[in-house]
């Protein structure tokens, strides 16, 4: 038996005419993983999901699920179920009939069927809702019914298309936690599509960030947020101070880059391979820059870098503030984020105040402008 991942997407492409909706994507998803496909609309994430479900044929490549090639299997025979973005609850059936819909072929006795459905209702915390009509449900309840209807089939993989997109913000946050708990409870591999980076970060074990039909980077939420290697990924997830740069020198993993906004910067190449003279992008997260009222005395440039600036603008966002600092070398102000702990916002100083910015070289991210995933092995 070949040694493949639980879901193995191998060099898959989907062309609609001249549009390459999905372009040579290879991904491996492990059993029991909660896997997120993240990207803006039109990036190919939904097409990829629909290919897993069997609703779209592949132009090229092969998808294996549990070591079984799926290209030739029609959607109604795949060990895969889907929760649709609109939830697609059958409007002419009640909750019980909706959940039992996929069990017709199993020819269960009435009692076993009722037990299975009630079990599913308990799983989604809607006990006693069996007789409710589909149109008597709230958005959150519809989503739960769609989940139960798919999970009762005990699929190998559950696909979710923007599962929380139709819910309001409060409910969405609650459902993020619930979905994750549910997934860990049933142990089924979940693959979901979202354009919401927060949703992807909070629910996924691993995320694949897609753009223009390609997967740019795959990794855990912390990897992708704190140590991205791709420029698009770095700017798509959260806020980022981005600049262009060139590697000046390298000693071990320690690099010096010359940037267009901050001059010479110390940085850590980590696992990445950079040659002196290479053009790259450089990013620093706003929360990794601290604001100091005065220049710090005797700093080791290996540990911290400092620059003087003027606060030109501030945005109060409740839990944190965004502070825009103009520095002599940068045409655009740098964005600095600060947690508003115990009234910190109040004594931050006013605009036009002279301050110093400081950051550690380990928070300077070196980003490749275009890196295809997976990286070439050659």
């Amino acid at each position, binding site marked *: 038996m070949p040694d493949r991942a639980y879901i193995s997407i191998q060099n898959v492409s989907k062309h609609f005419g001249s549009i390459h909706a999905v372009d040579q994507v290879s991904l491996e998803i492990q059993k029991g993983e909660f896997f997120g496909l993240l990207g803006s609309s039109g990036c190919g994430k939904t097409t990829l999901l629909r290919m897993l479900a069997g*609703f779209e044929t592949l132009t090229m490549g092969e998808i294996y699920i549990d070591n079984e090639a799926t290209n030739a299997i029609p959607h*109604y025979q795949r060990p895969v*179920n*889907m929760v649709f973005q609109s939830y697609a609850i059958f*409007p002419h059936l*009640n909750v019980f009939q909706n959940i039992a*819909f996929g069990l017709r*072929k199993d020819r269960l006795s009435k009692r076993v069927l009722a037990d299975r459905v009630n079990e599913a209702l308990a799983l989604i915390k809607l006990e006693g809702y069996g007789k409710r*009509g589909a149109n008597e449900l709230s958005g959150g309840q519809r989503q739960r019914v769609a989940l139960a*209807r798919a999970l009762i089939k005990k699929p190998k993989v559950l696909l979710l298309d923007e599962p929380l997109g139709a819910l309001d913000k409060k409910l969405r946050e609650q459902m993020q936690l619930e979905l994750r708990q549910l997934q860990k409870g049933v142990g089924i591999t979940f693959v979901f599509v979202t354009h919401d980076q927060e949703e992807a970060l909070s629910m996924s074990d691993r995320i694949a960030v897609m753009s223009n039909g390609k997967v740019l980077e795959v990794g855990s939420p912390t990897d992708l947020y704190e140590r991205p290697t791709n420029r698009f990924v770095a700017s798509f997830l959260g806020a980022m101070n981005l600049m262009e740069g060139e590697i000046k020198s390298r000693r071990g993993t320690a690099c010096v880059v010359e940037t267009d906004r901050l001059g010479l910067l110390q940085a850590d190449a980590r696992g990445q391979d950079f040659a002196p003279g290479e053009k790259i992008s450089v990013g620093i997260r706003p929360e990794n820059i601290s604001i100091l009222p005065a220049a710090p005395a005797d700093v080791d440039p290996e540990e911290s870098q400092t620059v003087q600036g003027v606060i030109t603008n501030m945005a109060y966002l409740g839990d944190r503030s965004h502070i825009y600092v103009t520095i002599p070398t940068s045409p655009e102000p740098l964005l600095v984020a600060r947690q508003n702990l115990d009234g910190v916002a109040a004594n931050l100083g006013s605009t036009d105040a002279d301050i110093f910015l400081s950051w550690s070289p380990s928070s300077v991210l070196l980003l490749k402008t275009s890196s295809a995933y997976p990286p070439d092995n050659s």
Partner: protein
Amino acid sequence: MTERKTQTGARWLKWYTIIYLCFIYLPVLFLPLFSFNDGIYVAFPMNGLTLHWWQEMINQPGMIHALWNSFRVAVPVSIFSTILGMCAAKAFTGYRLIGEKVLTGVFILPLVIPFIILGIALLIAFNSYGIELSLLSVGIGHVLICVPFSLFVLKSRLEGADPSIEEAALDLGETPWMTFWRVTFPLALPGVIASLLLTFTISFDEFLLALFLTGNESTLPIYIWSQLRFPAKLPAVLALGSAILIATFSIVIIAEYFRRQDTNLINERVN
């Protein structure tokens, strides 16, 4: 000044509306009225009320036979054209068709061709293929003109549905065939009923094609037309006409009711 002008305009519009409605409905109302008139002439003053003509209508075997013929044509016609209309509506809503607008045009063409030309064309076609004229040939002609109506009723019904609902059924392991019966058809049911009633009424009323394409048997409209030559039989025809009028009105109202039915109401009935 302007206010008075608008008032005059509004008064004129009111009168126009009244005259218009009278023009449409008054002649129709004469039918039931004179079917109760005790005399064979359709003229005022009326001679008093009688149920005689309604009795005579029931007692005319020819009339009852023609009525029966009309049912024998209209019922299968409504079923067949609804099936064909459903197939076409599925194709229009389910696939991205190339030249969809042209195709739609082709489908409604039978409605734009004058029935007299359609009738002659079909007559020639049936003759050249050696198909004998009978109620069957009338039925075939009626299916031709009923399918477009059925298509449009069902198409508008199917278009309103969320396409992922059918995908959900497929995803839950149903074949396309069972998906149709478990999901598509129940959701389209109000449209199906509306289509059945509408096409039944069209076939039941239709005169020109039936005249061209029938053999020895006559449908009700043709029978009525042939009876108009005998003045003494006219009041019984009026009675029959009134009966048909009431039946047709009720059917169309029921069809419209079902067409407007929202899935909510089907839900309530199912539950």
